[in-house]
């Protein structure tokens, strides 16, 4: 049985429908992410699990227990807040040990627990520091240690990395993931950063306007988005308006710039039939053909309209012959590869199997 189970959760703020009939199950030991743009209800959902928001409808159980009458301070959940909420008048050790105040441990046992928790987040020896004198990354670690010291069944993380700079954020992403494997506690992470969700999660629920748009593993989400909106939100996606026609038993797609080709049912996101539709293809599924390279797939010609050089990668905007708008394609930079300038003619190879068919816009 799932550790956390939500069924039919609805939440209104006045007339604003913040959560719409949310049902999902989170397994024990899972790293689960709620991903979506701001205002999509992901934080409200997290706070509902924590007990800071009361749903207007629906049932939430944690470890088989109905949480309707269990207040936030009695739930087997602990939370890392977006602002970290470090108690500024206490020391680091007092912050971390705050949750042990009501336990039966002796003073020495508590001190040992606090020391171990600080050690776990790489802050051994920081116990006597004043909490407000810490850097952003250190505050984040204190908040983690403080929330983990009670060994909750679920750790809830509300955008814990959004206040950190890029380098620190990347470091904390892998540390958090490692920590989660090490302690084996279920983590539920709220984030608006799709890359962060992909890197850290076992499963991701993408939310828009209070609803779950798609729930899948990172790979499935990236490779098989079930709607245009999810496809656009996760990573980069070229969207090309086109149409499909029935030809006997199979469907033929007509993609401006890429040509006509059969569409196998696997590529459809919603069983689309003949008519207007939108074709999606990721930038890395297309590549420029440089001299001497032998790529596979189909080939089309075009003109480079613009390029953005990122060091490791170069992103090209290519207007395909017969296409209506430029498509983006990403190329790994190799020593043997030149960087093309705008105006250069080029040939583009692409994988038909990477196509996805969405509804027309």
């Amino acid at each position, binding site marked *: 049985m799932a550790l956390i189970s939500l069924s039919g959760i609805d939440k209104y703020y006045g007339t604003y429908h913040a959560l719409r009939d949310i049902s999902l199950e989170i397994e024990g030991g899972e790293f689960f992410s709620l991903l979506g743009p701001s205002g999509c209800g992901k934080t409200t959902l997290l706070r509902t699990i*924590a007990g*800071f928001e009361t749903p207007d409808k629906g049932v939430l159980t944690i470890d088989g227990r109905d949480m309707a009458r269990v*207040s*936030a*301070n*009695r739930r087997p*959940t*602990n*939370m890392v*807040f*977006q*602002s970290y*909420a470090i*108690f*500024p*008048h206490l020391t680091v050790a007092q912050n971390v040990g*705050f*949750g042990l*105040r*009501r336990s039966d441990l002796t003073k020495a046992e508590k001190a040992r627990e606090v020391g171990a928790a600080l050690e776990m987040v790489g802050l051994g020896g920081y116990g006597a520091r*004043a909490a*407000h*004198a810490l850097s952003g990354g250190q505050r984040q670690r204190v908040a983690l240690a*403080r*929330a983990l010291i*009670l060994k909750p069944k679920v750790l809830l993380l509300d955008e814990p990395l959004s206040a950190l700079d890029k380098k620190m954020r990347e470091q904390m992403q892998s540390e958090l993931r490692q920590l989660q494997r090490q302690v084996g506690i279920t983590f539920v992470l709220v984030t608006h950063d799709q890359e962060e969700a992909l890197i850290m999660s076992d499963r991701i629920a993408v939310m828009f306007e209070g609803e779950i748009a798609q729930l899948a593993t990172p790979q499935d989400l990236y490779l098989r988005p079930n709607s245009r909106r999810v496809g656009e939100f996760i990573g980069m996606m070229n969207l090309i308006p086109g149409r499909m026609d029935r030809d006997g038993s199979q469907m033929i797609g007509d993609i401006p710039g890429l040509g006509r080709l059969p569409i196998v049912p696997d590529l459809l996101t919603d069983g689309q039939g003949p008519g207007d539709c939108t074709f999606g293809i990721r930038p890395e599924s297309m590549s420029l053909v440089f001299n001497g390279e032998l790529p596979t797939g189909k080939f089309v010609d075009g003109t480079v309209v613009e390029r953005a050089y990122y060091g490791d990668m170069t992103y090209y905007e290519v207007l395909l012959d017969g296409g209506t708008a430029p498509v983006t394609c990403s190329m790994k930079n190799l020593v043997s590869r030149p960087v093309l300038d705008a105006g250069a003619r080029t040939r583009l190879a692409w994988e038909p199997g990477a196509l996805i068919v969405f509804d027309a816009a």
Partner: protein
Amino acid sequence: MRGGGLRIYAVIYLVFLYLPILLLPVFAFNSSTIIAFPLASFTTEWFAELPRVPALRDALWVSLKIAVLTALVSTLLGVCAARAAARYRFAFKGTIMGLIMLPLVLPEIIVAVSLLVVFLQIGLPLGSLTVVLGHVLICTPFCVAILNGAFQSLDISLEEAAIDLGETGWSTFRLIILPLVMPGIISSLLIAFTISMDEFIIAFFLSGSEATLPVYLWGQLRFPQRLPVVMALGTLLVLASVVLLTIAEVARRRGVARRGQQDNGGFL
């Protein structure tokens, strides 16, 4: 020099504001009983006379009693109001907060007369208690103004974090909120104490036979030969006010610094 005119204006303004107060100690140490220049000789006689007047001692005691009670009650009310304003949404919040702050701008004499009428109507005998009630009315807005700053700068997730870690609403208030707003509370206590100590109009109307220090001072002004003693007493009162307000502000700033917060300007 740029802004020369404004500079001169500012200096004249400050002189006009503070010169009369500076004259207090000047005449308090002057040996002549006539309050006029040129000064006679230096003396501390008037200060020495202060403790020898029983009526003065009584008035001081009454004033201290009233000021302490006023400070406690109005700060308690201020904590409740500021907490409610910072944390909760309720019907007519703006109106209610406005009404709490209103005595700040109401003419004191109107407040005093109205209270007098009410107390006489309900048969409450005039004395220290009625003065305390009046002072609480005018001190509470000051306390709310000071405490609002302290409560509003508190991050709500601090409370939620404490509750998340197993504390109840009350223990969260005691362990997290109270220590963090304590500098504001101290500041509020001291300012309410100082206002009550110095207040004259309400005390004059409502004190009955229990004269407070300012009311006693007012009475003494009828006797010209007592004027230097009044000056000496006035000097001490001004000194005490300045010291108390300084302590209040220092307490507030230290609180801000200790928690590593941005100083968003206190009441002073």
